[in-house]
């Protein structure tokens, strides 16, 4: 089985995240790391590889030159091969371009049975790239599952408003996993040493047969950017016998609980 895992390098979640005046991620503002949700997606694939040595895990990333660090970490964790889509024309890609490019790269890798991705990256938070790739490649699609059983088909548990349901899909498929999926392993020392000898292929849009002007696609344009407003002080509820009621009222006003459930208190 060949599994492709989508990897994204993002600004450190705990670091300062800033946009440049053009609305691009300011890459100097903080350390670049492999997105934690990408690591969890890789863990799902590596667990399959642990139980079935014939499984081949390929990691794929689209990003600037530094994105190779994220791919190298994925290789040291246990992936077999890496593909890096690197092209100046991809600076400031939006979701449409990204999905088109990644779909072309998956086609380029070839004979892919399963694609695994995080449900949303911590920087972009679009959450629709996997669905768009499914559309491009005609893959079946499971969105936001908490874990994944991989066999002749794939299945996983999906949270719903009132509980959870199990969903499954035939292969080939693309699956996005949530943060409830298993935490990723650490690379071990041998993994770090062997990562250097594993293939890391850099491809351009031309290699993928993608027109760098994406003529078919509408695209989003950044008109302006603004800093997030500073945090305001919270509201203090002092208990004078009516704290519970005040708390419920506050939570309902913030739509954190529904008025219906509030009545039950």
């Amino acid at each position, binding site marked *: 089985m060949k599994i492709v895992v989508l990897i994204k390098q993002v600004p*450190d979640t*705990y*670091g*300062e995240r800033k946009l440049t005046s053009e609305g691009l991620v300011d890459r100097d*503002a*903080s*350390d670049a790391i492999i997105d934690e949700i990408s690591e969890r997606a890789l863990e799902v694939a590596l667990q399959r590889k642990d139980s079935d040595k014939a499984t081949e895990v390929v990691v794929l990333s689209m990003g600037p030159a530094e994105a190779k660090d994220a791919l*190298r*970490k994925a290789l*040291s964790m246990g992936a077999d091969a890496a593909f890096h889509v690197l092209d100046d024309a991809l600076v400031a890609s939006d979701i449409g371009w990204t999905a088109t490019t990644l779909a072309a790269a998956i086609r380029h890798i070839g004979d892919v049975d399963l694609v695994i991705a995080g449900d949303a990256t911590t920087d972009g938070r679009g959450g629709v790239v996997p669905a768009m790739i499914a559309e491009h490649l005609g893959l079946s699609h499971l969105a936001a599952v908490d874990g994944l059983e991989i066999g002749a088909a794939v299945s996983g548990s999906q949270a719903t408003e009132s509980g959870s349901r199990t969903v499954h899909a035939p292969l080939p498929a693309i699956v996005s996993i949530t943060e409830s999926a298993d935490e990723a392993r*650490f*690379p*071990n*020392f*041998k993994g*770090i*040493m062997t*990562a*250097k000898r594993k293939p890391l292929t850099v491809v351009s849009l031309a290699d993928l047969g993608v027109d760098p002007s994406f003529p078919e696609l509408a695209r989003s344009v950044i008109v302006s950017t603004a800093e997030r407003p500073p945090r305001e002080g919270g509201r203090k509820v002092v208990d004078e016998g009516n704290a519970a009621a005040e708390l419920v009222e506050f939570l309902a006003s913030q739509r954190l609980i529904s008025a219906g459930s509030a009545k039950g208190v």
Partner: protein
Amino acid sequence: MTQTLARTRQDDGFDLTEDERDLSAMVREFAEEVVAPRSYEADREHELPLDVVAQMGELGLFGLPFPEEVGGQGGDYMAFCLAVEGLARVDQSIAITLEAAVGLGAMPVFRHGTEQQKQELLPALLAGKALAGFGLTETGAGSDAGATRTTAVLDGDEWVVTGSKQFITNSGTPITSHVAVTAVTGRTTDASGRERREISTIIVPTGTPGFTVEPAYDKVGWRASDTHPLTLDGVRVPASNLLGERGRGYANFLSALDEGRIAVAALATGAAQGCLEEAVRYANERVVFDVPIAQHQHIAFTIARMRSRVHTARLSWHDAARRRDAGASFKEQAAIAKLVASDAAMLNARDATQVFGGYGFMNESLVGRHYRDSKILEIGEGTSEVQLMLIARSLGLGVQA
């Protein structure tokens, strides 16, 4: 905030290869995510967290400086020391557990063991599935290890070992497989006609009748590290449990001590670094008289000195480790690294605790633990006085021990 931390991560690793950087990054992440959350409780309960040890085994840390043929990871001493430094930043007890497991547990078997001893003992030790101790220190034999009183007498095809040992690391954990003890196995006369004790090393497996691991010490620091006195009362082990040549026990141990100093220097550097990072973080957060204390020049300069000590200590152990890995002499450099780095740890722990004020005196605080933990760095693996003696001797100054 991570920004500030990222800046205090300081690139002292100019000489590091890409692999070494990746290894350091991996250990740092493991230390923060797996080791640190357990440290306070482990220290309070005086209990080595064995599940953390098991995970370190999975990462390959116990096999770092050993070749793959014997089950090691194929790294070198530099790699091993980087791992020790990375762990010590958040938890000295865990770092010394690794340092002793490799330097005192596995390394003597790898260096001096017979093929059979290696095949029997190394796989579990290098995977972190077993720990081993080295029993040298006795009531009257510390820095002067030649004063060993424990004896081992050959009776048929068995050694009968009698005596006691003190402060033996990793000797009593549930996964301790053996302790290698030094013992007097005879007396020889040297060229000048003086009688000398012949000291050999004997492997004593855990659970051998007569071998008692006494209750753990109540230590000031390194409290999650496993340390016990040992009693050996007519302990019988096969003659084949002799580790290394008969009569070479002390000499073999001394050679291990030199390289162990580099690892302890790395450990001390990690401690000094941990104190530095905590001090920078807290000084930026803590507001006194309307400004963060980092803006008070005294605090800023205190921290600048801390940083300078880390830098000096790190360069010092890097140099000693590189020399060792290149096959060059490193005795003097190891002594200097141990001296400088243990000073750095003790002084940085003291300064960081001062920056923290009362909070630093709480056992929950990392700097408070480093304050207790760092003192032993000036004592173990050769006291600072022993390092000074070695450095003085390397200059041709004829000082007496």
